[in-house]
C-alpha cells in the first residue's frame, strides 16, 4: 500500500449492499447517525434478490410479497431516501495494516476510516470444483446464482434439458428460472432421502413440472467435451450407476458464506460454516466490527437478512456512542444432525437476538423435533418444536431455550433429544 492513498472518513462503513447491508445502513441513518456509506462491488446495489426474478421476497421485513428485483429496488430507494451514501462498483478488496477497509472503484483506490464496520457480504453456492465432481469440464454447468444472472440480467439462452442437483428451496428457484428460459428440467437429483418443496409449489410441483426425482443419488461424473452431454449418477446405498442425458446441470444449494474479508481480518469463525462468530448483538471478535445477513447464516431468506440489518444498528450506535463494554461470553455449539448455529456466542444479560430466534442448519428430517439445550450437563431447556427440521433450510429455535445459560460455565450445547 502506498502512503499517498486517499482516505474516506465516515461514521459507519457497511460492506455489502444486499438486503442486510442496505437495511442496516438505512436503520443507522434513520436513527441519526450522520454519515453511513455502503460499499457494493456490483454496479447495482440490492444483492442476490436483484437477479432472483420470482416472487417470495419481503414478507417479514416489509409485510409484502414482492419479486426479488422489486424488493431490491425498494431497499435501494429506502437507503437513498434515508441519506445513505450507496457506492456501487466499489469493492473492498482487503484491509490496511491498521484494519481499515481498502476500496477499489472507478473513482480510485482509497481507504475508509470508519467509526464502525458492518460486514454484510452474503453467501454463495459452492461451485462444481468445491463439490469435487469429477469428469469432463464442458460448458453448461452452473450454480443457481450463475443461471439467474445469465437468464435475468444477460437474457441469454441456456440449454434445453437440465438436471437440477439439490432439493432445497433454491433448487425450485432454479427450476422456475429454467422454465422461464425455455429449458426443461429432466431430473432433480438429491443426496437427501426426501425432497423439500416450498409450500406453494408442493401441490403444483408434480403436475406443473412433471419431472422425476432421484433421491439418495450423487453426481459421480460429468460427461461431454464441449457441452454437457450427460451425467453419471451413483446411488448412495446401492452404488448403482445411471447415465442421464442432459445439456445443462444446475448445482443448487451447498452454501458458503462469503467470508474472505472476515478471514483476512482474522475474525474468529463460527464452527460448521466458517462465517464470522458473532454474539446476539452481531458483534464479531474485532471491536467495532459487526456482521449481518447471510454471511452469518448461509442461507436464510432475504427478509431475515434484512432484519439482521435492522437489529445490528442498535449495537453499532451504542459502540459509536463510546460504550464498548462486553459482558462475558459462552459459546453455543451443536451436535448432529445440526451443522451449525448462529449467533454462536451468548453473553448472559445481553438482549435477545434478531427476531428472538437462533438459526440452525439441519442435515436430517424430523417432523416435530425434540430439542435439548444443555450447559455443563445441566439441561437448560427441553422442548418439542412445532415446526419441522429439514435439510437445506434454516431451523429456528426460540432464544428462550438458551436464555438461562450462565457466563461462568462451559459451552451451551444444542442437540436433539
Amino acid at each position, binding site marked *: 500500500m*502506498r502512503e*499517498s*492513498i*486517499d482516505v474516506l472518513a465516515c461514521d459507519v462503513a457497511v460492506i455489502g449492499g444486499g438486503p442486510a447491508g442496505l437495511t442496516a445502513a438505512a436503520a443507522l441513518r434513520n436513527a441519526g447517525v450522520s454519515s453511513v456509506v455502503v460499499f457494493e*462491488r*456490483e454496479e447495482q446495489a440490492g444483492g442476490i434478490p436483484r437477479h432472483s426474478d420470482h416472487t417470495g421476497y419481503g414478507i417479514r421485513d416489509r409485510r409484502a410479497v414482492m419479486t426479488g428485483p422489486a424488493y431490491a429496488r425498494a431497499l435501494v430507494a429506502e437507503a437513498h431516501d434515508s441519506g445513505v451514501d450507496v457506492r456501487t*462498483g466499489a*469493492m473492498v*478488496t482487503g484491509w490496511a495494516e491498521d484494519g481499515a477497509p481498502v476500496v*477499489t*472503484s*472507478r*473513482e*480510485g*483506490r482509497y481507504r475508509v476510516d470508519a467509526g464502525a464496520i458492518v460486514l454484510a457480504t452474503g453467501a*454463495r*453456492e*459452492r*461451485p*462444481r*470444483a*468445491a463439490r*469435487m465432481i*469429477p*469428469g*469432463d*469440464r464442458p*460448458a*453448461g454447468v*452452473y*450454480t443457481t*446464482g*450463475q443461471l439467474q*444472472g*445469465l437468464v435475468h*440480467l*444477460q437474457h*441469454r*439462452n441456456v440449454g434445453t434439458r437440465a438436471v437440477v442437483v439439490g432439493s432445497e428451496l433454491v433448487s425450485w428457484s432454479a427450476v422456475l428460472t429454467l422454465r422461464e428460459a425455455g429449458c426443461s428440467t429432466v431430473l432433480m437429483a438429491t443426496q437427501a432421502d426426501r425432497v423439500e418443496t416450498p409450500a406453494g409449489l408442493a401441490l403444483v410441483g408434480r403436475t406443473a413440472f412433471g419431472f422425476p426425482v432421484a433421491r439418495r443419488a450423487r453426481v*459421480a*461424473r460429468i460427461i461431454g*467435451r464441449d457441452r454437457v452431454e450427460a451425467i453419471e449418477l451413483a446411488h448412495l446405498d446401492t452404488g448403482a450407476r445411471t447415465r442421464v442425458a442432459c445439456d445443462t446441470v444446475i448445482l443448487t444449494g451447498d452454501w*458458503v458464506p462469503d467470508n*474472505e474479508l472476515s*478471514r*483476512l481480518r482474522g475474525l474468529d469463525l463460527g464452527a460448521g460454516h466458517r462465517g464470522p462468530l458473532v454474539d446476539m448483538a452481531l458483534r464479531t471478535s474485532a471491536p467495532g466490527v459487526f456482521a449481518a445477513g447471510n454471511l452469518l447464516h448461509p442461507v436464510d431468506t432475504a427478509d431475515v437478512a434484512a432484519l439482521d440489518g435492522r437489529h445490528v444498528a442498535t449495537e453499532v450506535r451504542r459502540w459509536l456512542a463510546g460504550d464498548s463494554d462486553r459482558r462475558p461470553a459462552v459459546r453455543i455449539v451443536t451436535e448432529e444432525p445440526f451443522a451449525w448455529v448462529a449467533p454462536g456466542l451468548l453473553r448472559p444479560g445481553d438482549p435477545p437476538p434478531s427476531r428472538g430466534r437462533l438459526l440452525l442448519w439441519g442435515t436430517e428430517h424430523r417432523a416435530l423435533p425434540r430439542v435439548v439445550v444443555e450447559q455443563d450437563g445441566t439441561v437448560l431447556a427441553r422442548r418439542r418444536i412445532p415446526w419441522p427440521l429439514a435439510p437445506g433450510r434454516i431451523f429456528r429455535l426460540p432464544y428462550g431455550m438458551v436464555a438461562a445459560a450462565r457466563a461462568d460455565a462451559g459451552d451451551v450445547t444444542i442437540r436433539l433429544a
Partner: protein
Amino acid sequence: MIADVDIVVIGAGVVGCAVARHLAGFDVSIALIEARCDIGDATSKANTAILHTGFDAVPGSLEASMVARGYALLSGYADAVGIPVERTGAVLVAWTDDELAVLPSLRDKAVKNGYHACEVIDAGAVRVMLPHLGPGVVGGLTVPGESIICPWTTPLAFATEAVERGVQLMLGTRVLDVMPGPGSTTVVSDRGDIRTRWIVNAAGLGGDVIDRMLGHDRFTIVPRRGELLVYDKLARPLVDVIVLPVPTDKGKGVLISPTIFGNVMLGPTSESLVDRADTSTSEEGFAFLLAKGSALLPALMDEDVTAAYAGLRAATEHIDYVVDVDPGQRYLLLGGIRSTGLTASMALAEHAATLLSESGLDLVPRTDLPPPPRMPNIGESFPRPYSREDLITADPEYGSIVCFCERVTRGEIRDALASAIPPSDLDGLRRRTRATLGRCQGFYCGAEVSGMLGVVDA
C-alpha cells in the same frame, strides 16, 4: 491458401510458440499452425507451472541440458516482458528412512547436472520452512532455485512476440498430411495447403502422428494423465515453498505448491491413458490426491477446492526428449516433451535454430526487430491493476472490478479482447485475465464476463 513460407511450425503449445518467436528473429518467413482456436490450449495450459532448475534430470540427457538452459533463458525473458515468476524455492520432504537415505544421492545428482545449491536439512529445519506439514517428516533436501511461473502468460508472450515479428499464426487449422518434395514440402490442412521449405514438428501429443506422415516410425506417445487440485487462496499462508516428493522406486509422489495466482496446488497423479484428448478428472484421482494431501498438509483439507483439472504428458518409450533433424526432408522433430517443456521451451527454440542452421537453413539475424511486448501482469508477485492508484487514475476502467474473487478489472478484459492474439472463448479469456477462475467459479461474474465476451458459454 497462404503464400509460401520458409518454415512451418506445427503446434502452438509453449514449445511451438517459443520456436516460432525465436526463428522469427532471423530473416525467414514463418507460419505457426495450430489445430485449436487458441495458442497454448493443450498440455501447455494444464501443468504444475514450476520453473525447474533441472536438479533431478537424468545427467547427460538432452532434457537435462535443455531444462538448465531453459531455466536461465526463461528467467531473463520473464523479467524482460513481465511474465509473473515467484522465487519460492522447493524442499523435497522425506517421510520415511528410505526416502531420507536417497537425499544425498539426489544432491550429488544435482551437482552432476551443474546445480550446486541443494542442501540436505533435518526435520527441524523442514518444519521451520513449512510449519503446517503433517506429522512424520524425517528430513529434506532444499532446491532454492525452483520457482513458480505463470503457465499461461509464457506461451502467450512467445506467440505475441512471434506475431509482432511477422509470424503468421494460423489458429483453428489442423494439419492433415505433410508431403515432403525435393524443393518444398506441402502441408495439407483443413484450411487448405501451405507450401514451405522447412517443417518443425512441435505437435505435442500429436507429434508421433505428424512424424509418421513424414514416413518415420521412431516413437509412440502414450498420454500420461496428471490430475491436479487447486485450493482456495485462503490456504496460501499454509505453504510458501514448493513441497516436492522424494522420487523412489515405489513411484513418483505428488507435490504441493503455491501458485503464481496465490492458490495452493496439490498433484499431479500419473496414469497412462489411450485417449489423447481425455483431460477429464476422475473419482480415483481425487481420492488419491485427497489421501496424499491429508497426510502432507492436513490443514489444507479444511479449505475448499477452487479448481480441478488434468493435463496430459506426451510420454514416449524413450527416457529423453525425441529431438532429431532430417536435413533431406528439411524436417525437425521436437517430440516427447513430457513434463519439463514449459521450463525448457526457450532452450528448445535455441537448439532448434542451431539444428536447422547446421542442416543448411540460412539463418541471418534480423536488425529490424520490434521491441519485446510487455505482458499484462496476472500474477500475485507484483501489484495487479486493481491495486494501483496510478493506473486507476489514468484509466478508471482499471478501478472497475468485474471478477471479484480474482480482482479482474474491466480494463484488463478490454485489453485482452483488443490484444494481438485475442481470446476466442471464455477459456482463453480466463487464461489471459484470470476472470471467473476464482472460488465462486462464476457465481457472481460468470454472466457478466460472458456478456463482455459476447458468448453464451460459461
